[in-house]
């Protein structure tokens, strides 16, 4: 039995992630206890404590936030239940509290996206940014990584930045206003969105403003959801850094290894994905649609 404390189902990406873990568990004949925390850390901690009370063999956590895990991880350790952290990072002083982290590096994603954009525009670019939810780690770190890179290019700067709360609706609404404020979007060279959903909303806003996304305004974001690949294939978007939702396999591998007695496991298994562009988009879309 393995308990899996998931964040919620706030985005299409998250849902694919949950489904892939469940499918993987089924394939391997693991009894998976799935818990949805509805984006709340307190629910997630409750779930983990319930797993402990239930006496599961191992626990997988996809944490909502990086901090705040120390007490509950200590409790798990006392109960001798191995914990694997997936997707996001966590901050605890004591490494022994978990078996390993299978995490992507958000700032690396931001850097990749920025690097692509700088390479494409030779560092000349007025960028507008659609941020994720204020305070979310993904938003903070992606912005951080992105800014680190463009800081090196004096002619590239972010002219407007506002939160689109990781959703398509907000992304579109905010982009609309930004375009208005930026003289109808003239002079804006690129849109940088913290996730694909907002980017897709932004693309629609650009189209409705009478501009051509993908050429008048470049679009770059993170995640790699099927819809975005389609947009890239259609030429409406330019690039995305993929974030693989298939984290279930590696996590179960680690757990099986650990329970098998092999305690020699690296503390970090990095999964930062690749950057995809329009070139391969059509093919990738076909591949992903079939999954």
């Amino acid at each position, binding site marked *: 039995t393995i308990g899996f404390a998931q964040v919620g189902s706030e985005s299409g990406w998250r849902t694919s992630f949950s489904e892939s873990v469940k499918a993987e568990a089924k394939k391997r004949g693991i009894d998976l206890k799935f818990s949805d925390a509805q984006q709340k850390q307190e629910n997630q901690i409750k779930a983990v404590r319930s797993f402990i009370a239930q006496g599961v063999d191992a626990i997988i956590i996809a944490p909502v936030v990086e901090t705040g895990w120390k007490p509950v991880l200590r409790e798990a350790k006392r109960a001798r239940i191995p914990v694997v952290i997936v997707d996001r990072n966590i901050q605890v002083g004591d490494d022994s509290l978990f078996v390993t982290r299978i995490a992507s590096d958000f700032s690396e994603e931001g850097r990749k996206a920025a690097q692509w954009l700088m390479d494409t525009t030779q560092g000349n670019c007025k960028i507008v940014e659609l941020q994720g939810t204020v305070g979310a780690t993904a938003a903070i770190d992606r912005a951080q990584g992105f800014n680190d890179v463009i800081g090196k290019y004096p002619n590239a700067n972010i002219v407007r930045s506002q939160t689109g709360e990781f959703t*398509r*609706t907000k992304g579109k609404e905010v982009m609309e206003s930004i375009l208005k*404020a930026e003289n109808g979007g003239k002079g804006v060279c690129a849109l940088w969105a913290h996730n694909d959903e907002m980017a897709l909303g932004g693309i629609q806003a650009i189209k409705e403003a009478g501009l051509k996304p993908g050429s008048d305004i470049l679009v770059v974001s993170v995640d790699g959801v099927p819809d975005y690949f389609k947009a890239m294939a259609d030429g409406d978007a330019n690039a995305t850094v993929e974030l693989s939702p298939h984290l279930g396999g590696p996590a179960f591998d680690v757990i099986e290894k650990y329970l098998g007695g092999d305690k020699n496991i690296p503390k970090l298994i990095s999964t930062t994905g690749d950057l995809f562009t329009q070139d391969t988009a059509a093919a990738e879309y076909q591949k992903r649609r079939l999954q």
Partner: protein
Amino acid sequence: MSQQPQSLSIVNKVDSPADEALIAARKARYSPGKSTNALGRYLWPVSALVLLLLVNLFMDASFFSISYQDGRLYGSLIDILNRSAPVALLAIGMSVVIATGGIDLSVGAVMAIAGAVCAGMLVGGNYSLFTVICAGLTVGIVAGLVNGGLVSFLGIQPIVATLLLMVAGRGVAQLINQGQIVTFQSDAFAFIGIGAFLGLPFPVWLVLITLLLSQLLLRRTALGLFIEAVGCNASASRYLGINDKGVKLFVYGLTGFCAAIAGMIATADIQGADGNNTGLWLELDAILAVVIGGAALSGGRFSLVLSVVGALIIQTLSTTIILSGLPAKFNLLIKASVVLIVLLLQSDVFRQHAQSVLKGLKGGKA
């Protein structure tokens, strides 16, 4: 105070001059028309809106400019109208629910359900646009009636009854499309969200039509009066022979209907149904809009027009924040301050305080 001879003549008990003097004395105490203050109700919300718009003008001189391009009007003001459509629709429904002393927290979730149903049908099969829209509206009305039933027939407190659907409704919306954000290709349906008619965005028309129809339905029949009576004093309304349960059922149904339209606009706007995020937290905005419009949450008098003004204020505020270019982390602080200012403007006590302070300042100078 002028005395009208006609008004004296209808007092048939006048027979002696002494009586006439008496009645004159009695009349002199009253000044008709002063006790009601219909204008005052509109004054403060509307001035708050105007003030906010002026702030924008100050920040961006071209704010009020409207141009005509490809058969539609284009400009920040039009955007505000367009973007406020979902909240305005919700506020229309919410104001009648609040007028009965209730509240509906589920409108955001109902939006998501209606959107999911429409999107699911558009993707899944060959339904005509008409069928799809009818299905969406029906789902909204049914959801509203469920709320209404819980409130009126089971006597569950409105906030809890609708909280149930607020929680479960999002689950239902996601269930319909298995948690995926379904994207559809239907220009006809997309028109609901992004089309334009006679220059104005279609959502604006939807708001206008809904506003007009509800206004007719509520004010050209006795329904509006019944709603207010139930909201002011449910027990007395029962003694009057008003079917308070029926009235409650109706208002929740109407709210569900409005939420369904709002949900379809939101879905058509991004041409996809996002069960988890469509209409998220919009119920709070809708309630805020109604209250900014001057309604009491304890029930009673309502004004649909003022609620729509409230929705416009909220949207203008959001636009202002985006235009201001301040970092996103200040959003909530700005919102809190503006809400407080609007509220204070509406408070008689505050206005009196402010007046006396102003007077004091002037006196001090003189």
